[in-house]
């Protein structure tokens, strides 16, 4: 097996799926850092985003790339509404209550998707796309766009968190919510802003997953474990860590078939998660919470 083959069939798919994991992991890590709980409805929110984009594609006849911002805005709105309806009420209770509530929300969101769009597999565009070959490397436009969009979105988020007033408020609340409140940071607005960003990132992860593979009602739920593994691997609360973690989990999953029987591929994320929690629970880049 030569180097090109490894790049084409193991590394490139690993980076593409890793980029999608990264988008989800960034959202998980933000919720962890600012709201301090594990959000189990994350995957199903991504499913919702993917299907909202499908709605825009089928109703508006636009390309999925145009539908992406629409889905991001709608999913962000849905995330804010879910927070207001279910999580805000539990804010002062032990966090585990909210975690369980988010599991219930996950089931509800999935049920809504199944009721509205049905349970069949769907795609944005019918048919198959063969890859272009650049100097022996086989890659599709949509795969390049997925990787570039992930980098663009994460860079934009990074600049926002570092430079803008609201980004600083979010970081302040992540460091110490009480101190931030005393210093004049409106916690409610920060929570809302967090959900807007998380909802948008969820939708992006869902749309790119649907674009590269298929849309299914269970698509987000099955992505939940690798996304959590990525967030913890990178260091909870660290955006750049989530990206690194996502890419490592994605590449490790694809590469694992070189060494392990293929049925163990799905267990790779588990193994990474377990190993990381045992050896270095703070993650590769030192996480802020946990």
């Amino acid at each position: 097996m030569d180097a090109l083959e490894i790049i084409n069939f193991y590394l490139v798919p690993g980076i593409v799926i890793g980029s999608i994991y990264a988008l989800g992991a960034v959202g998980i890590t933000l919720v962890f850092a600012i709201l301090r709980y594990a959000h189990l409805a994350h995957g199903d929110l991504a499913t919702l985003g993917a299907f909202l984009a499908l709605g825009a594609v089928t109703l508006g006849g636009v390309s999925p790339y145009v539908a992406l911002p629409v889905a991001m805005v709608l999913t962000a709105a849905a995330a804010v509404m879910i927070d207001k309806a279910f999580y805000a009420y539990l804010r002062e209770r032990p966090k585990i209550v909210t975690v369980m509530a988010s599991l219930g929300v996950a089931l509800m969101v999935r049920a809504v998707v199944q009721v509205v769009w049905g349970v069949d597999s769907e795609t944005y565009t019918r048919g198959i796309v063969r890859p272009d070959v650049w100097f022996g490397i086989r890659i599709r436009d949509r795969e390049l766009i997925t990787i570039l969009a992930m980098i663009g979105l994460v860079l934009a988020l990074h600049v926002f968190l570092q430079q803008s007033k609201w980004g600083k408020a979010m970081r302040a609340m992540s460091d110490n919510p009480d101190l931030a409140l005393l210093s004049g940071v409106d916690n409610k607005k920060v929570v809302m802003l967090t959900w807007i960003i998380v909802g948008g990132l969820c939708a992006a992860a869902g749309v790119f997953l649907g674009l590269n593979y298929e849309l299914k009602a269970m698509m987000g739920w099955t992505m939940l474990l690798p996304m959590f593994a990525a967030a913890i691997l990178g260091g909870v609360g660290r955006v750049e860590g989530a990206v690194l973690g996502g890419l490592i989990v994605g590449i490790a999953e694809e590469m694992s078939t070189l060494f392990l029987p293929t049925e163990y591929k799905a267990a790779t994320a588990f193994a990474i998660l377990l190993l990381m929690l045992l050896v270095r629970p703070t993650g590769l880049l030192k996480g802020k919470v946990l």
Partner: protein
Amino acid sequence: MNKFRTALAATLLGATAMAAPAQADVKIGLLGGVSGPIAAMAPAMIDSARLAVQQVNDNGGILDGEQLVAVVGDSACNPQNGTDAATKAVNIENVIGIVGPHCSGAVLAATNSVTIPAGVTVITPSGTSPEISGLNDNDTVFRTVPSDDFQGRALARTLLLRGTAKVAVAYLNNDYGKGLAEAFRSEFEGNGGEIAGFAAHEGEKASYRSNLAELASGGADTLVIFDYGDGSGLTMLRQALENGFFENFVGGDGMKSDAPIKELGAENLTTFLSSAPVGEKSDSLEMFSKAFADVGGDPSAIFATTSYDAAFMLALAIEKAGGDKAKVSAALREISNGEGEPIRAGEWAKAKELIAAGTAIDYKGAAGDHNFDDKGDVPGTYALFKVSGDGFEVVSEIQ
């Protein structure tokens, strides 16, 4: 507020009282993979079973003119949901028998943990794993579809006859995929074929390119996929086509789904073949086909015939057993053991009269005669299908 609550409670009580007469109906459970990896197949299967129920109710009802009521449950093609759905059907709905679940894993889990202890008779129209034959079931688990032990072997012989001597096999790591793949492998290798790659995969992953690369490294140009066409089978097929890993594709009955045609396009599936059980030509099949087409169904949809037969036979057995849950499984053997007055698909009124008179009857179903062997299995016939237009077309019968 208190008044409002009392009023609400009274309304709810009233609603329960009104629902009460429905309790006298005879309930059967229809458990199927409504969501999950066979979601595209399930509607036709549920509809054809409902047709059988409809025919019973239109022709005098069951027992003393009671209505047969079908309660649908979603077994989602996995063991956990299968158990949940069966528990609900058995304990809450108090069903007297069950048609389904659709997938082998769900059948094994639901029967082992729910229906066998409860003594409820189960007929699966599509659970094909050889494991089901070996269940210690007190004779309560039956199927109207042949075991994959037959299908895997028949497909292996057919491929060899067609001149394909070297294949790679990818199978879903569950009871269905594994059973089929093992049967295929033993027959294919036993008759001189070469398996150049044999690997299981977990379902519902996004990327299978590295799995496919591993399989392709063995040098075969034909990939045999034992998976579901609405689940990871579709993803695998797409990625194999897009990356040119293999030229020819062969699937089992799980791959004969509309989803690949709908999502990949028939023009890309010219080298895709799939085997599936078919009904032998019979009057009964024609009668079913006509009745099912009349209610807007597609009689050639996969497992429509077996699903219809399962529901109709369950109704016959309940009638024969006089509604006694414990006697249903014995009655099921009596109504279709090859001896007695033949009953074809939809002939409920005739069957009801004969049962009342104490005459032996023998159901000749749309999918076959269904004379169960001692394990509750039936022999079957298969055909090889290719994609044609927006559906599947028979290439040849296979044995």
